[in-house]
């Protein structure tokens, strides 16, 4: 009897939105274990934890930060295609100001301000002028990498590499045995979570995303809320930009974070949110980013020729979304005799 109860509880779990992405993550890791027998080994190298699992967490940090900002914007029924370009601009600002000899703490501040300014621009176009988000943010997506190149030109730009103890400490350093960027990510996640879930902002965002006109009538300033969402997204992208730029010690506006907007949108969707807006799932978005990074890392260690990378990624993403689709699942259970409810 109690077995039956457990079974029922497991069956009921499938309605929990956290189950399917976590299942996908677990499956990817299990496959990795077969591909590479010592996949799960974790050692201590150079005073820090070292291994594939750490790599997945470590590499997922920038993607997760971008995706968190994206989750907030998508919550308002918007989208921000310009996050990759914002990262390119931040990277260029960092390299430029380091060459100019500014204090590095100030440069960190400049980079975040640059992201915020980009967010203000997007917010102005979407909330101020009422341009559709996909078009409004396309402007900066297209122009941003050019702006980054122009910033590189301020100092000649032939060798945009740099060293910075502070920024590289944040990106590639470690505290005790743990990479510093995991603390940075955790701090930003908690700050954003508090802002969204411990103030009324989250409710406003979801209200605006659900029905902007209705929330306006209910007294929510929907334009201000939307505007603020894009600023948050810009700052989160800038934080990712600091980590990515410091990671490679160089500013490469043309190719840095290429297609990161698509991965971010994907992470939000794997996390269970709808592009139709109205919901913000911060924790699940991080799981979505981990699924994508676990997949990327698996492809790299799989030893398959690089020609297959994108095809495999597409197939696995399809499978994950398929698992998440209620329609697909009920269609399958109808096909299996006795499996229908």
């Amino acid at each position, binding site marked *: 009897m109690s077995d039956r109860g457990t079974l029922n509880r497991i069956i009921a779990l499938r309605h929990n939105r956290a189950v399917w992405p976590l299942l996908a993550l677990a499956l990817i890791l299990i496959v990795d274990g077969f591909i590479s027998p010592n996949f799960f080994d974790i050692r201590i190298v150079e005073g820090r934890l070292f291994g594939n699992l750490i790599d997945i967490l470590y590499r997922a940090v920038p993607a997760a930060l971008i995706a968190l900002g994206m989750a907030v914007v998508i919550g308002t029924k918007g989208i921000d295609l310009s996050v990759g370009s914002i990262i390119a601009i931040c990277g260029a600002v960092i390299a430029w100001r380091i060459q100019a000899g500014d204090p590095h703490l100030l440069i960190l501040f400049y980079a975040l301000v640059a992201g915020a300014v980009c967010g203000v621009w997007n917010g102005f176009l979407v909330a101020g002028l009422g341009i559709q988000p996909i078009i409004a943010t396309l402007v900066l997506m297209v122009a941003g990498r050019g702006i980054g190149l122009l910033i590189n030109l301020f100092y000649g730009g032939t060798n945009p590499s740099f060293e910075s103890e502070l920024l590289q400490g944040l990106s590639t350093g470690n505290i005790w045995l743990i990479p510093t960027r995991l603390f940075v990510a955790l701090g930003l996640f908690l700050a954003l979570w508090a802002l969204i879930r411990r103030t009324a902002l989250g409710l406003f965002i979801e209200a605006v995303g659900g029905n902007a006109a209705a929330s306006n009538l209910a007294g929510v300033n929907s334009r201000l809320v939307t505007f603020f969402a894009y600023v948050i997204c810009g700052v989160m992208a800038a934080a990712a930009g600091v980590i990515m730029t410091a990671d490679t010690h160089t500013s490469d506006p043309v*190719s840095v974070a290429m297609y990161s907007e698509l991965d971010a949108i994907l992470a939000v969707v794997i996390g269970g949110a709808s592009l139709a807006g109205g919901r913000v799932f911060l924790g699940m978005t991080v799981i979505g980013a981990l699924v994508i990074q676990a997949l990327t890392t698996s492809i790299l260690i799989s030893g398959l020729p690089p020609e297959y990378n994108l095809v495999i990624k597409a197939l696995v993403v399809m499978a994950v979304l398929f698992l998440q689709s209620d329609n697909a699942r009920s269609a399958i259970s109808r096909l299996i005799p006795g499996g229908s409810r």
Partner: protein
Amino acid sequence: MLKNALAGAAFAVSALVCSTAFAQTIGFSQVGSEGDWRPAFSANMQESAKDYGIDLKFANAQGKQEEQLRAVRAFIAQGVDAIIIAPVVVTGWDQVLQEAKEAEIPIFLVDRDVEVKDPSLYVTRISADFNLEGKLAGAWLAAESKGTCKIVELQGTTGSAPAIERKKGFEAVIGQFPAMEIVATQSGDFTTEGGKKVMEAFIKSTNNLDGICASFAHNDNMQLGAIQAMKEAGLKPGKDVLMVSVDYVPAIVEALKAGEANASVELRSAVGKFIYPVILDYLKSPQELPKWIVIPSDLHTAN
């Protein structure tokens, strides 16, 4: 006195008129400004045009072929003396090159190649040989490792001409040595970020590069990322593992000095001095040229 000054002025004016009359106007359609190498290449083309007294019309296609086609058509409409194209992609050129031919404007290719049905649509291609770069890297590695070496390879963007040719050239040389083999290969997309990620994965999948003797990267940016990944894993790039790559950008020069890289094949960016004389000679006396004029490559090592 006054007469002299007047004569001088007249001479100066006539010299100016002559020089404008004879100065060649050349249109140059560049791919874009990605990476470290291409902006340096563009700057050199613009600088050295002045040395040859060429009026260079520069158009940046920002990585888009349609932009490039538009630029070439604009050059044709302006009636330039010659057009230089650094093609974004290899296909889709027949139509616009035909238009240039009908306008009797000779076309010169630099950097990448094009695939056209009628090879007479362009005069010649003046560029480095990616295949030769791969061979040079392979030859250096074969000599340095005395023909015994397990190699990890960081490929350029999958399907791009430099990635395909550098790999072919490299494999052609190491194929001569039975104890040399590529044990892992992945694409790092020609970026520092990509090179670093791929090397991090290789470090894990080969147990800290155990038994690996060399890293061959299709460009310096990826190798610089690989160097960082190895240092962060407590390895000594340049000592534990031989590091050979292509491009010779300023940052790899520093890495060579620091002993963290061992060799880099130079993809010259100062190529105006190889390109312009060919074009000017052709404009003076048009004649059949070989379809490919190779700009020599050079290998730089730490010492």
